């Protein structure tokens, strides 16, 4: 069955790229300087390796960004994630115990927030990162409303 997934905000991808660049560029530059100072030869492998690693990481992050998705259906919320290890979680609205909206320092810089759903089962792992703060709050309120309307006992 095909589900129309909502994507997370493109800002999430920008935030991820920024973090990656903040880590990758100085490291690669430092490696390049080290190679230049120690003088050519086998040392060239160091900055090249760094660059290849971070380009690969960039590709992985892009794939993971594209994999994130969520869909609000009539009775349940579906969250999709993961590039290599793909996961799809289905959480009925009536089963939600509480909903968290959290934002780390990087998230706040880009006006992002993550919505996490908690059920009575410890293994449930429905989390949607990288939503615009206002979107996240709206989603939380919507979900809370749906949850209250459909609440069932354990």
């Amino acid at each position, binding site marked *: *069955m095909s589900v129309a997934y909502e994507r997370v905000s493109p800002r999430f991808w920008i935030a991820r790229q920024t973090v990656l660049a903040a880590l990758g560029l100085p490291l690669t530059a430092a490696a390049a300087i080290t190679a230049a100072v120690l003088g050519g030869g086998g040392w060239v492998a160091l900055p090249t390796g760094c660059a290849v690693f971070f380009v690969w990481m960039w590709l992985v992050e892009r794939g993971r960004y594209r994999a994130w998705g969520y869909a609000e259906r009539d*009775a*349940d919320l579906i969250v999709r994630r993961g590039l*290599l*290890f*793909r*996961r*799809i*979680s*289905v*959480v*009925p609205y*009536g*089963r939600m115990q509480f909903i968290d909206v959290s934002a780390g320092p990087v998230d706040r810089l880009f006006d992002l927030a993550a919505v996490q759903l908690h*059920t*009575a*089962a*410890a*293994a*449930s*792992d*429905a989390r949607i990162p990288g939503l615009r703060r206002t979107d996240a709050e709206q989603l939380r309120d919507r979900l809370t409303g749906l949850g209250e309307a459909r*609440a*069932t*006992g*354990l």
Partner: protein
Amino acid sequence: MTSPAPPPLLADHWQRLHPLSPLVRFGRLFVAVVVIAVPSLGTVQRGHREQLFTLLLWAALLILGAAAGVIAWLVTRWRIDGADLQIETGLIRRQSIRIPLARVQAVDVVAPLLARLLGLAEVRVVSAGRGSEHGRLAYVTAAEAPVLRAQLLALAHGLSRETPQPPGIALFHLDNAQLAYGLLLRAPTLAPLSLAILAVVLTVIVPPAGITLASTTFTIVAAGVISSARAYNDDFDLLVSEAGDGLRLDRGLLQRRHETIPYGRIQALRLVEPLLWRPFGWARLEVDIARQGEPRREGRESQQIARTLVPVAPRVVVVGLLQRVMPDAVVTPPRGSRPPRRAVTRAPFAYHLLAAWHDQRYICARSGRVRAETVIVPLDKMQSIRLATGPLLRALRLASVHVDTAGHRWQASALCRDAGEADRLVWSLAGLAGHARRRRSQLSPLPIA
């Protein structure tokens, strides 16, 4: 209870626990101290003064423990106030606990050996949030305990407290000899046992090697023996009966316990068939209940509560009881429940047991490498569904589907299914679970939690 309950027992005024309660608590400390102190006194050769000093230290510890016990008893009181059970305790940090009886999940009666000898028993009021952490009345007299239990339950159901406990129908009575054989045929028992036999044989043939083996493996053997003895002690003479409110379990050799598992709280059942039991056609039935994780310090005793429904019995009997709890559940894998042949690459040791099937009401999944474990989850208990694949699974066009419940022990996991089938399974389970929930809320309009 057949005899009408004496009303003064649940009087509204404050009352203390039984005066002998500190003695039972002290008894545990005493045993612990004796176990630790006596060998250390006996083995270490030291001067008289030092020995006297150590002895005094242990004695002081004992006296302190006894005093603490007596004080704890003196400052603890309880009463029934309307529909609440109220317990006040603590000398320095006073604690006043009020348990609304309408929210009570179960009332258990536990009698440890020493308490039994003194004619006492503990009443535990199990609530949804904190388990039995706070609602413990340790101890009242053994005659009072069942009456108190019945009255608390009657209040919990919103009836007048004189309502007699509904009679139970016996469903299953454990064969103690079979329990002994079943425990004997477990790996945790057999491994130390064979080690012990090996040590004895070696001692006869090559004495030095045998004695080395015996001394090194002694702790393992002792641990195995103790764990088996405990299991035997816990489940001895188990009687499962059915009452209006759920299943009742009475069991124990030295320590007797009486527990209730409310039907609505059962999140999942698990049928376990260990390899060595299969030739005899025996099985075990375990239960998973929605209950908050209780703190560690309460120890083994509370963890033990109502986990095993049937420790060992012929499979037919076990399945019969299972179907009593979950009507119409299918326990044997039907046709088409096996994962595709290529799954053997991903799960070479478990493939021969993997199976998953579902109907309108239950999802069942069998897994395990050596022993077969079948988890049965009623769909109306489902909390979430997860579909998971990894690189290897995807290369094999496989996926796993997990069904989570509010229990803390297992999930129903359909492992290594065909990718397309797993996808369809997720959506059909989501729909079926929704139907199951609605059906149940029509049946019982009152929310359980």
